[in-house]
């Protein structure tokens, strides 16, 4: 594939390009980005890449070192991702790998990267096994544990006193995990539970059942294009009087297509563009100016990852001492644009979670907006199973 080896940007203030031979120089920092940059989910990967590159450009010399960034496309295929990760580690000899978006891709690259002693920072994927039994001291996650976004919505449904919620998710592992996560914090009754085919476009049959049952609320996990279709059709079917709770279904990556069909729909998140936290407004403004769209969490988490690396390198004094670098990363020496942020013992974040709602901003663009805080300094459920070695 043609996109596989874009050496995209060399962001050091010093303009001289460091060739591969110079990679082992102690004063050159080499970071490999691996994101899904082609196929239907490319939007998410592009947001992650852009968020990271924006931060890198703002920082200039990450950790005070000459910085070289290699960008790879994992094509959302685990086998290809594993090969690209090996290339990054063995041929390009990067110090740190940042990526990917999808949990199954992370599962494929975590071994090749961490076995070589390279540090891996996931700016989005947060599978349960890597938070628990399979945790690794070389892996840091700047996003969340996958279940948490769903738990937020479950807790909200519980708090609202909903007693009859209809659940909808695609029929694959993440879909089943999602509904399990929702049920973890929701004790009420389930009006119905439907698993749809992955990639389904028309939800008229499911929406008809929702209309027939008239539940208190609907909880949906429909990432990407599935969510766009579901939301538009939900609105068209006249169901908007039933509260629509969701995770990864209405966010800034899908809102340009959903537009006002998603207005007032709820989501669970660790951040929103209008979150009141130091540096957040500046980040959102800079991102919008450079890329012309409102950032979603994928961009924010990658942006944070860059500042995390920067802070840790300055504290550890470079990449030479790996143990010092890992210790520095663990202390999360940076200001996250989502406010409170620290790492748990499993290197997954301990952070706040919010209920968000889709609004139209004054400039006409659609974005999510914080409604209320649901969890404060919330850690995941698997941290106890992690025996860091």
């Amino acid at each position, binding site marked *: 594939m043609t996109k596989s080896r874009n050496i995209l940007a060399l962001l050091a203030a010093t303009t001289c390009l460091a060739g591969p031979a110079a990679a082992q120089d102690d004063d050159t920092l080499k970071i490999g980005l691996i994101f899904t940059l082609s196929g239907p989910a490319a939007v998410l990967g592009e947001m992650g890449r852009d968020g990271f590159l924006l931060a890198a450009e703002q920082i200039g010399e990450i950790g005070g070192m000459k910085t070289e960034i290699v960008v790879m496309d994992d094509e959302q295929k685990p086998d290809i991702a594993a090969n690209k990760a090996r290339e990054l580690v063995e041929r390009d000899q990067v110090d740190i790998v940042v990526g990917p978006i999808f949990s199954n891709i992370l599962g494929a690259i975590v071994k090749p990267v961490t076995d070589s002693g390279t540090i891996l920072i996931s700016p989005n994927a947060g599978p349960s096994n890597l938070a628990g039994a399979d945790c690794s001291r070389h892996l840091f996650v700047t996003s969340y544990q996958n279940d948490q976004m769903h738990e937020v919505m479950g807790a909200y449904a519980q708090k609202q006193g909903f007693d009859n919620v209809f659940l909808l998710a695609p029929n694959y592992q993440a879909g089943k995990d999602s509904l399990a996560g929702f049920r973890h914090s929701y004790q009420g009754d389930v009006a119905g*539970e439907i698993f749809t085919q992955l990639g389904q476009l028309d939800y008229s049959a499911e929406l008809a059942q929702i*209309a027939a049952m008239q539940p208190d609320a609907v909880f949906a996990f429909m990432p990407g294009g599935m969510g766009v279709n579901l939301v538009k059709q939900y609105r068209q*079917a006249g169901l908007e009087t039933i509260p629509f709770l969701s995770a990864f279904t209405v966010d800034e990556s899908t809102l340009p297509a959903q537009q006002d069909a998603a207005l007032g729909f709820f989501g669970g998140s660790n951040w929103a563009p209008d979150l009141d936290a130091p540096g957040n407004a500046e980040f959102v403004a800079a991102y919008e100016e450079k890329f012309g769209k409102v950032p979603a969490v994928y961009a924010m988490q990658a942006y944070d990852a860059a500042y995390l690396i920067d802070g840790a390198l300055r504290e550890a004094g470079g990449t030479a001492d790996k143990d010092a670098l890992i210790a520095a990363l663990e202390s999360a020496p940076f200001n996250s644009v989502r406010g409170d942020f620290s790492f748990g013992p499993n290197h997954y974040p301990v952070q706040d979670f919010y209920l968000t709602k889709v609004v139209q901003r004054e400039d006409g663009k659609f974005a999510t907006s914080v409604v209320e805080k649901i969890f404060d300094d919330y850690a995941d459920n698997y941290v106890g199973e992690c025996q860091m070695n």
Partner: protein
Amino acid sequence: MTNLFLLQLLNGMQFGILLFLIAAGLTLVFGIMDFVNLAHGVIYMIGAYLAVTFAQMTGSYGLGLLLTLPATLLIGLLLELLVFRKLYDRPHLDQVLATFGLVMVLTEAVEIIWGAAPLSVRMPDLLSGSVPLVGPMRYPVFRLVVIGAGLVTAAGLWLVITRTRIGMRLRAGATNRAMVSALGVDIRKLFTIIFAFGAMLAGFAGAMVAPILTVDPGMGESVLILAFVVIVIGGIGSVKGAFAGALLVGLVDTLGRSFGPIILRAVMEPSAAAQAGRVLAPMLVYILMAAILAARPAGLFGART
């Protein structure tokens, strides 16, 4: 339960009609020209993209839809002249390979021009609401419009095919191509017309779904397989068959998905029923096809085997 059934019946019909618009062109091309065109789904996708673009340019979905029709007709003509014309005398495998290549080229081209992110188009405010059906059930107005437009198109096609000279030639061509050619009909010209017309129908279908579904580069592939199922069930080359097959597939798929688990729940445990229903529902359409082919190997209205 009867309310739900009524609603699902409408849903099934709407899906079936959409399939018919795509399958009509496919069955003519396959039946009369004996040409396997895998790129038909891509034209459906391009129709949707053009509708979005034209709607943005003109500010009106209706105008966008109207502009899409001649545009996809033109694309059909161009493709026929540049690519397909050279493939008619080749074996089916060559046609499959060539049109599959075309699928990849056109999909990539669409990604380059419009990007990978899904697009959408605003539907006219007049049609964006829903109408009350019975009790709390409502039905989207736009889907009723899709059903109406599809039925009108079907009626128009029926008139053309049964009442006009070109329709007579089409029917004759579907039955025996060599004989029609021997009788002095310019079969090449007929092919070009059929092809362009089929492309326009697919483009029309794409433009009609643009406000309901997302417009993304993968939308053509998912629908192409079902369109082939439809024309095999209906009988290759028969537009009447495509209509019957499309409605059948649409209804079986929609009703199966929603009522399969409910019926299964009567005979087994709820969780097992949900599991079995989930597995069975996507298979129903193919089971239907196998059953129909077992009884009628040429399909419901097939002129030849």
